[in-house]
């Protein structure tokens, strides 16, 4: 017999009212607007776009406001909205070599064409709280210098020329869009990369860190890290003309990892790849390291049984919306399930007592 229970409607409505009030906070303090969030909390906005898998700054800022700054809740809102959008089509693959860079660094070569450009980074700050920000309005202006508007080549292309690094050649394998088709293991690398790019930053950071500590043999250097705007090219179906339909900020990381060689090919470096929306370099680097560790089969490496090598483990658990959905659902009423467990444990205890009396 299944007994459904109803109730709690008033409690739920009142909970939502209080949520609305508490989201607003002290009414004597000015209310946040969406533009303030999208202009001043840019890296939160970027994270919600990346893991929400939808590039739209205003929507991301709205999601952050609505979720009281709970970024996973905001990502959930973005994902839910994303599913309502008709898909107009797919872009041409982006050309990150033509990126309008805000930042471009290499940890492997000092002198590179296009030079090392730090951009707006936290890297060399002292991580001391800046009490000046408690006061209003003070900020430094960015400095400017004359430049050459030249394309900035990828650093790894130089290693490529010498044959010192493994080449990335299209495999010819067809890949599915993981948001439209169920996942079937083993996956292609493209399917893994799609999954990683929208995966949880914290989870990927933890896994990438585990590879650095020795759980998967792949010591990594950051061959190149770049952040900037890339033109997205899309063919207008009615016209057959390809246009620059959107300008999107990306962070790209190419890692250089230890050698692979065989009887036919002398030792050469291998590589991992990270590409994410926004200025999320911690995530881009993490993605590159985890991409690399999951390529063990392709490079004929040993399977060490560690998490970062196991694509089924990584891909099945890197999506924070799937994860939080399953995790958080256990706080919703499970009265009937639990009643069954309760009956079972009582029965077992009774049998245990009977047995004890017999002996």
């Amino acid at each position, binding site marked *: 017999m299944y007994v459904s229970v109803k109730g709690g409607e008033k409690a739920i409505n009142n909970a939502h009212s209080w949520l609305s009030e508490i989201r607003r906070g002290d009414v004597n303090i000015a209310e946040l607007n969406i533009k303030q969030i999208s202009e001043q909390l840019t890296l939160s906005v970027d994270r919600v776009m990346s893991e929400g898998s939808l590039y739209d700054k205003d929507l991301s800022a709205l999601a952050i406001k609505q979720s009281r700054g709970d970024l996973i809740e905001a990502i959930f809102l973005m994902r839910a909205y994303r599913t309502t959008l008709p*898909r107009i089509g797919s872009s041409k693959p982006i050309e990150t070599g033509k990126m309008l860079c805000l930042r471009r660094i290499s940890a492997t070569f000092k002198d590179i064409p296009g030079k090392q450009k730090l951009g707006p980074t936290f890297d060399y700050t002292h991580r001391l709280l800046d009490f000046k920000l408690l006061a209003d309005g003070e900020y430094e202006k960015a400095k400017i210098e004359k*430049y050459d508007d030249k394309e900035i080549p990828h650093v790894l292309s130089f290693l490529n020329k010498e044959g010192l690094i493994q080449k990335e050649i299209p495999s010819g394998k067809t890949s599915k869009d993981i948001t439209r088709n169920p996942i079937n293991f083993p996956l292609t690398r493209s399917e893994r990369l799609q999954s990683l790019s929208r995966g949880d930053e914290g989870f990927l950071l933890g896994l990438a860190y585990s590879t650095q500590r020795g759980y998967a043999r792949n010591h990594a250097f950051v061959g190149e890290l770049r952040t900037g705007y890339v033109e997205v090219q*899309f063919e207008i179906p009615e016209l057959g003309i390809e246009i620059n339909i959107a300008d999107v900020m990306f962070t790209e990381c190419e890692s250089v990892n230890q050698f692979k060689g065989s009887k036919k090919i002398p030792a050469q470096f291998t590589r991992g790849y990270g590409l994410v929306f926004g200025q999320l370099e911690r995530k881009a680097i993490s993605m590159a390291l985890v991409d690399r560790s999951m390529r063990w089969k392709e490079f004929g490496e040993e399977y060490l049984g560690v998490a970062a090598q196991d694509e089924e483990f990584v891909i099945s658990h890197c999506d924070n919306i799937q994860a939080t959905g399953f995790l958080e659902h256990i706080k919703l009423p499970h009265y009937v399930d639990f009643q069954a467990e309760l009956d079972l444990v009582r029965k077992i205890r009774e049998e245990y007592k009977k047995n004890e009396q017999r002996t």
Partner: protein
Amino acid sequence: MKNKSRKQWLSYLATADENYLISLWDNLNMKIEYNWLREPEIGSVMVQGKAGVTGDNFNVGEVTITRCSLSLDKKIQGHGYVQGRNKYKSKIAALCDALMQTEKKEIIKRNIIDKLIKYKNNKRNEILSKTEATKVDFFTLVRGEDK
């Protein structure tokens, strides 16, 4: 050749700052008769990347796009494919695309397209010059044993 210039104006319209494009259009105060072929609709385009820059394509994520199509008469059609979710921006883009095929071309070019190009170039220059200011100049310190 015609397609090349249409590609250019469609690109600048698509990626224009929406408030800027709207103010440019509204300032022209043009009353244009048109019929909808497709009313503005919000959707998305899946953006593709390439694994390791030169390898297989993969899906990175989607970007919001609004599109519409209209006609001025039976011959001239305008298409407004733009970044974001602003239906008015999409309509303006479609109207500009259509008008660029008429004798009003010069007005639209001078008052809208050229200004969008200038706006985008200014933004680009601003980023490039700020990025350049953060370029690292390395120098080596002379060590004692080298003396």
